[in-house]
């Protein structure tokens, strides 16, 4: 059997597919996020008996922090595919991913600051995790700035792809450089990842919210990539024949 692996790498085929996929992903996102947050905010047991209800911000906080890192990996993967196979659509996917990734990074930082103010008594601390998340935001911003600074789409795609890959190599280095070698010198407020110890209800609500955020990313990225396709392929004949363009 012959499978054409590259069928949907052609914008003409992907454009309608993306259009059909937006609605299911958007519905899934709404259902999962509402369910996850409702479960998290109202149905998980009060594990902290002393009324520290503010811990419940953990659901949007952890889920968006996960998505912020995952979407950077996705973006770099598309950039790599684009550089290797020289497909236009991969670069469009990469550039459609960046704003959503930056948004989740921002949400993670803001919810973290609110949580920090209530529990640590400070909005911000130069703690390894906080700082690396901030640098991740800078990397997203740099990627989008470079992309919009270059007018020729071919050059802008490829240049920002190289930048994204360089950033990916640097992320672990930055993370461990701020996590300095001497543990006595960097007392960090942010706790280490401790999913093993989290109560299973809370963990499930967190996972459901994260998957909901992921589905939201799919929907929004497909919407954005459709717009990019229309913009870049505006001179192609198939675009002119689309009902929404006519």
């Amino acid at each position: 059997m012959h499978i054409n692996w590259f069928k949907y790498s052609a914008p003409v085929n992907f454009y309608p597919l993306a259009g059909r996929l937006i609605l299911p992903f958007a519905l899934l996102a709404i259902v999962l996020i509402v369910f996850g947050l409702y479960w998290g905010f109202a149905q998980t047991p009060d594990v902290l008996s002393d009324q520290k209800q503010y811990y419940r911000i953990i659901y949007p906080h952890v889920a968006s922090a996960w998505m912020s890192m995952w979407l950077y990996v996705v973006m770099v993967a598309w950039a790599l595919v684009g550089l290797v196979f020289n497909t236009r659509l991969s670069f469009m996917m990469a550039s459609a991913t960046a704003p959503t990734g930056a948004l989740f990074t921002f949400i993670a930082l803001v919810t973290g600051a609110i949580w920090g103010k209530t529990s640590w008594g400070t909005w911000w601390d130069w703690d390894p995790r906080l700082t690396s998340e901030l640098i991740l935001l800078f990397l997203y911003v740099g990627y989008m700035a470079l992309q919009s600074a270059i007018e020729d789409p071919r050059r802008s795609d490829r240049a920002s792809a190289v930048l994204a890959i360089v950033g990916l190599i640097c992320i672990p280095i930055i993370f461990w450089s701020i996590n300095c070698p001497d543990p006595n010198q960097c007392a960090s407020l942010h706790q280490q990842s401790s999913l093993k110890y989290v109560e299973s209800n809370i963990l499930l609500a967190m996972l459901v919210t994260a998957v909901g955020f992921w589905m939201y990313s799919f929907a929004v990225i497909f919407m954005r990539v459709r717009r990019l396709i229309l913009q870049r392929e505006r001179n192609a004949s198939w675009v002119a024949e689309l009902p929404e363009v006519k």
Partner: protein
Amino acid sequence: MFRVFLTVLGRDLTLAMRRRTDVLTALFFFIIVVSLFPLGIGSQKETLRFIAPGVVWVAALLASLLVLERLFADDYADGSLEQMLLIPQPLVIVVLAKITAHWLLTGLPLVLIAPLVGVQYHLDPQEQLAMMAVLLIGTPILSLIGAIGAALTLGLRGGGVLVALLILPLYIPVLVYGAGAVARVMGGSEDITAYFQLLGAFLMLALVLSPPATAAALRISSE
């Protein structure tokens, strides 16, 4: 291949010697920035000693950023960069030679001027020595990482500001360990081997990864 390296290196050094002000700009920028802090913060000896490592490193970061644009811009403007892209020898060698020349002209002077800064900030000879040593390992990393940004933003409007946005986040490890090592010595610790090893590791990593990335970026920028 080594001859190509030497040729490009010699050419860049000769060109820079014909226009010495270009080289001195970065150096004087560094000295001025470092001298501004005591004026702004106050000249108490303890305060100055406390902020010295961070100030010197941030000033070095900014100074190296300031001159990055010139790494490829002149060659791009007069077309010699395109000739370099066409030669049969690997572009990586040419890039490495250009980065080396750039570091000799802009990074090495910062290392040599560091004792002067040490005097301004009341550092002991031993602390000055540590400062020079980490600058010696750290500034080549800055040139190597910066070259990627300079190649990506070649010929763009407002390239200088853009380079800062792209490259400064990637400079952070060098800043953390460079300033950390000096602060460690000032804290009375003799042993800063760990910092040297980590900075050395970054240098090796940058030396291997940056020239190919810069070469790829140059090809993208000038096609």
